[in-house]
């Protein structure tokens, strides 16, 4: 342990802590910085995190200094403020100050630092600035603006250290130094949009989000990426009922600070044209009142003969659906096991977010042939939810033969086509729930946008089926469902699912 004084207060940190982290903890906010990133190696190129250390002849950068016993550090002295201001002026010498057309405006490191430390008039005429390439498309997802770059090298380090692909580099020297892709190379990897996230300025921007919205207009909700079994923590940025982008939230236990480009595009499915927006019976749109009548007619006071739960359902939905029928009549299918391979960074070969949830509730997963046989032998209403088992040809054949198929679905697809009654359920960003990722970690997500059309929350549909089938009332709130779920799967009061820990919860201990 090292005892040191930061801004006249004593603190104790374990040996090996960087002074940057120590100052962040001591001050309650990070030092001004561009190049430091908790999940990247230290570069020390932006020179902004300068602090005054007693006994050192000059100011020193905190990110590249370790804590030492007896250190006396000042982070807010006049000398420090003046140094930061001068360095910031250097960073801005050739900056085009085109904030009005820059997508980063509103979440830009330069803007933030300038408001905190700058506030000076520029000494450089606009005409005297060194011009570089603007609007350079460097890959399928990313656009580069070399003028805006402050050469912090975060993106370069990301491509070297995290993906190991090394597409980006800083070329030339002095005020002609510029970020670029290596000659003949594109920034084309599945993690390229992370460079946009970590870019502290608007040098790298996303082609998908380009000019779509000014960032200060967006509202955010906490989510879990539904793209694969990894369950990266995301921030769902939305406005006016539309999701505009997903950004990774840092969770060192799951995804670090990153997420893959595939996962980022999963939001598009929420606003897909194939969304099921009305209850449908035999190709005709119904109102919910008519649909409830049809549902009652099909169930006739009985439980469904077979419930097929897919790994896209939330844990709460799985729990409700499991208890709709006899345990032997609740199964899952071979959903999404053939959708591609994973990599050893984040992407998992299993492209469904909640397969571990099925296992934690003891729901059997059947192969295609077995599931088709079970559907064929059901002899009563079959309820399908949480995925589209009809993507598999064998299962699709059996579903087509089933006369009493009820599907709760988000999108049109083979199962909805085969269904006698299709009910529109909320997609992932339109409901709150929990996914269990490949580590067995329970991770909660919140509702971001309003449900479109006649779409209903899936737990409400399941509660209605429960009421119809068991001639009683179903659960009244998601909170009640969650309390039951915790009591049944964990132990009572073990976890408050409405206040899930930020890093998720792994039942039975392990690495939290």
């Amino acid at each position, binding site marked *: 342990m090292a005892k040191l004084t930061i801004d006249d207060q004593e603190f104790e940190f374990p040996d090996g802590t960087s002074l940057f982290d120590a100052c962040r903890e001591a001050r309650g906010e990070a030092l001004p910085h561009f190049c430091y990133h908790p999940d990247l190696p230290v570069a020390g190129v932006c020179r902004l995190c300068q602090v005054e250390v007693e006994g050192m002849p000059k100011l020193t950068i905190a990110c590249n200094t370790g804590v030492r016993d007896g250190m006396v550090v000042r982070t807010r002295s006049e000398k420090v403020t003046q140094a930061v201001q001068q360095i910031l002026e250097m960073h801005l010498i050739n900056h085009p100050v*085109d*904030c*009005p*057309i820059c997508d980063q*405006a509103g979440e830009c490191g330069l803007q933030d630092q300038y408001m905190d430390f700058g506030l000076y008039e520029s000494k450089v005429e606009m005409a005297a600035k060194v011009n570089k390439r*603007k*609007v350079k498309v460097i890959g399928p997802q990313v656009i580069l603006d070399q003028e805006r770059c402050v050469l912090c090298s975060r993106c370069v380090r990301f491509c070297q250290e995290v993906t190991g692909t090394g597409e980006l580099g800083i070329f030339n020297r002095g005020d002609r130094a510029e970020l670029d892709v290596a000659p003949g190379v594109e920034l084309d990897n599945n993690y390229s949009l992370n460079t946009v996230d970590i870019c502290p300025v608007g040098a790298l921007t996303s082609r998908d989000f*380009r*000019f*779509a919205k*000014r960032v*200060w*207009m967006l509202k955010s909700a906490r989510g879990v990426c539904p793209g694969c079994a990894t369950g990266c923590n995301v921030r769902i940025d939305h406005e006016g009922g539309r999701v505009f982008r997903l950004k990774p939230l840092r969770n060192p236990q799951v995804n670090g600070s990153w997420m893959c480009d595939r996962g980022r595009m999963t939001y598009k499915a929420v606003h897909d044209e194939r969304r099921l927006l009305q209850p449908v019976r035999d190709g005709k749109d119904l109102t919910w009142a008519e649909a409830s009548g049809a549902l009652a007619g099909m169930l006739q006071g009985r439980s469904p003969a077979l419930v097929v739960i897919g790994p896209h359902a939330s844990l709460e939905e799985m729990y409700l659906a499991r208890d709709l029928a006899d345990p032997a009549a609740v199964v899952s299918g071979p959903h999404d096991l053939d959708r591609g391979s994973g990599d050893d960074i984040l992407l998992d070969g299993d492209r469904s977010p909640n397969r571990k949830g099925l296992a934690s509730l003891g729901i059997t997963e059947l192969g295609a042939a077995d599931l088709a046989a079970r559907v064929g032998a059901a002899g009563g209403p079959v309820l399908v939810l949480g995925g589209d088992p009809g993507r598999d040809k064998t299962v699709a054949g059996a579903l087509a033969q089933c006369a009493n198929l009820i599907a709760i679905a988000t999108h049109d697809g083979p199962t909805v086509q085969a269904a006698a009654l299709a009910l529109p359920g909320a997609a992932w960003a339109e409901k709150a729930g929990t996914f269990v990722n490949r580590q067995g970690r329970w991770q909660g997500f919140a509702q971001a946008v309003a449900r479109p059309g006649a779409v209903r929350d899936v737990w409400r549909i399941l509660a209605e089926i429960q009421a119809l089938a068991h001639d009683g009332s179903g659960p009244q709130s998601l909170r009640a469902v969650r309390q039951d779920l915790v009591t049944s799967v964990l132990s009572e009061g073990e976890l408050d699912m409405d206040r899930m820990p930020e890093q998720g919860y792994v039942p039975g201990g392990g690495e939290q």
Partner: protein
Amino acid sequence: MSFEGLPIGTAAKKRSFREKLYFPEILRGLGVTIRHLLHNILHTADMPTMQYPEEKRVYSDRFRGRHRLMKREDGSPRCVACQMCSTACPADCIDIVAAEHPDPSIEKYPATFDIDLLRCVYCGLCEEACPCDAIRMDTGIYEIAADKRSSFLVDKEFLLNNTTDGTL
């Protein structure tokens, strides 16, 4: 302020016999009216009434009238769709959709720029927020009339070629 001593309720004032007759009082009131009428006929220049629309009030040069969008030298809109105006707008009446401009030195331009004139409160915050001097309220137009609500939703083309007669 003290309410002490003030009468409570609406008890009627005692009227004199003359007041109870009504007619003398009515004639007295008509007398006041006729006196003003004759005064106005004889001194028309003192009359406060304005002969609008033949005669119009002169407003200050800084009067905020209907908006217009400024053009570049080549006639394209000066606006870069930064949406500072719609952010600043307290009435939320400006709707802009940005798009990619083929010229990388311009980069961003408004594909649509709609203002709902019925919502606008003519506060001028949009003008003030604009970093490119692209939106101005210096047309002096305040006579804004139409027979349909939808006519008050004006688009980019209209704002770029703002007419001065107030028709929509």
